[in-house]
């Protein structure tokens, strides 16, 4: 196979629609049909069509072209669409001048969009259409998978919320309360602590006994409404047992402030009591100072002790636990 081949322009156009024949000085002799679509109509020199690819430093396009004669990959960008990079190679066919052939590489889909290229702009031997097919197929599959993931995430969130919610009242349940207390102790919150309010309804048993459990449940829902109405959105409200409720009141509190809010809650509950049942509430409060994320159980127990003091002292009242004395010197968490 040593005999030379001679191609006419039409053969070159069909074999290599993105070729370019240039003189050693950079003057353009001819260009393939797809290449002509990328060039300014009156371009006569490679400098008018291209700029050097990133990282090249010869300073002019023809320098980069000549440098690639040895077999190196030639990387150029279109002067008027610099996002579009072309890659190709250069041969010296022997009859003078240089023959360049290009493809779009990773700029393919951008080039197809910018120049509105069609299947006939590519040689049948090119993988351009397969690449575009694959890109679109991947995108479609990814979108579907993302949809699956969103769906799973929402389902997980629903399950989590259910696991932390009391189904009767919609308040937090015991597990939700524990998480809320852990969160309240998070050091990065940097808040000045919180108050934990434990309350237990007085005479609730009478409602159940006299009016039935449905009425009792209705009252619990009413009480939940009173509690959420009395506190702020950033506070936490939980039902942790039959008629036991716990509030997490965010921020620094004075004894007077806590007594006031406790009294308002008791009043609100008495207002929703069925007639002749005299439902009220006994309230015990502890401040978070002296407790930490690892002593939430003790904090609840201490609130319970304060609550029972209220019960002992005649129900329908508020007791605030004294600040605990730490067993060993340690910084008071949540205090500023």
């Amino acid at each position: 196979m040593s005999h030379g081949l001679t191609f006419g322009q039409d053969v070159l156009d069909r074999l290599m629609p993105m070729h370019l024949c240039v003189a050693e000085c950079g003057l353009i002799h001819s260009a393939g049909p797809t290449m002509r679509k990328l060039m300014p109509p009156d371009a006569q020199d490679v400098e008018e069509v291209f700029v050097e690819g990133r990282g090249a430093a010869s300073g002019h396009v023809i320098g980069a072209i000549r440098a690639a004669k040895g077999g190196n990959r030639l990387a150029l960008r279109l002067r008027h669409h610099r996002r579009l990079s072309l890659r190709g190679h250069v041969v010296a066919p022997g009859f003078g001048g240089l023959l360049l052939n290009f493809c779009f590489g990773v700029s393919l889909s951008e080039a197809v969009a910018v120049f509105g290229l069609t299947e006939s702009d590519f040689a049948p031997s090119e993988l351009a259409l397969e690449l575009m097919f694959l890109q679109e197929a991947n995108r479609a599959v990814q979108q579907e998978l993302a949809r699956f993931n969103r769906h799973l995430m929402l389902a997980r969130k629903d399950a989590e919320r259910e696991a932390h919610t009391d189904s009767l009242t919609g308040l937090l349940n015991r597990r939700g309360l524990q998480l809320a207390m852990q969160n309240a102790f998070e050091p990065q919150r940097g808040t000045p602590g919180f108050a934990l309010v434990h309350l237990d309804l007085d005479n609730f048993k009478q409602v159940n006994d006299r009016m039935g459990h449905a009425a009792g449940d209705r009252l619990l829902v009413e009480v939940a409404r009173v509690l959420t109405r009395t506190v702020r959105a950033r506070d936490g409200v939980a039902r942790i047992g039959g008629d036991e409720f716990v509030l997490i009141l965010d921020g620094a509190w004075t004894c007077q402030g806590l007594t006031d809010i406790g009294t308002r809650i008791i009043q609100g509950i008495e207002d929703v009591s069925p007639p002749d049942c005299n439902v009220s509430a006994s309230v015990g409060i502890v401040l978070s100072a002296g407790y930490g994320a690892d002593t939430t159980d003790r904090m609840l127990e201490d609130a319970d002790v304060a609550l029972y003091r209220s019960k002992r002292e005649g129900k329908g009242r508020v007791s605030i636990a004294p600040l605990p004395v730490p067993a060993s010197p340690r910084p008071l968490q949540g205090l500023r």
Partner: protein
Amino acid sequence: MNDLVSRAVERFLAEESVPLQAGAENLDPAGILHDAARRLNKPVDELVEELGAWLVRQEEIWRLLRFCGRDFLDFLLRLEELPDRIRLITDDLDIPEIGLSRSEDGLLWVSFSHGQAVWTALLSGLLRAMADDYGALCVITPRDSGLCVDISDSAFATGRTFHLSPRIHAS
């Protein structure tokens, strides 16, 4: 990937207003289709054929299909590539090899290495819809040995315009 097939079948049935039966989510796509056909009181082949036509109406799938041929005849002659194309995207789907032959009377015959019944039904719906899309006039007949395609005019009407770039919208 099988989840995607199930989802396509579910969406198709939803658009055909066939409510999914309780427990249907545990069935494979073939099971769902058989169940739906029984409740619609129509042969499952007919439903699968409608599924084939429905696939062509899904914009993303339509675009992928149009990448497979410049006109309907080209599309048909390159059907043999289809399993390899699908394997480019995923290799966990069981796609039969597709064989193509031309009889002396000029008819094109499409056959499948396995799953003859369901693929004949699916492809007859899909090919009819694609012929419409390309503007070709042809008769597609399911036979025992596969599909028989008789193209009488591959440029009967103006086909729907397809641009290689998804960013250029068909006018």
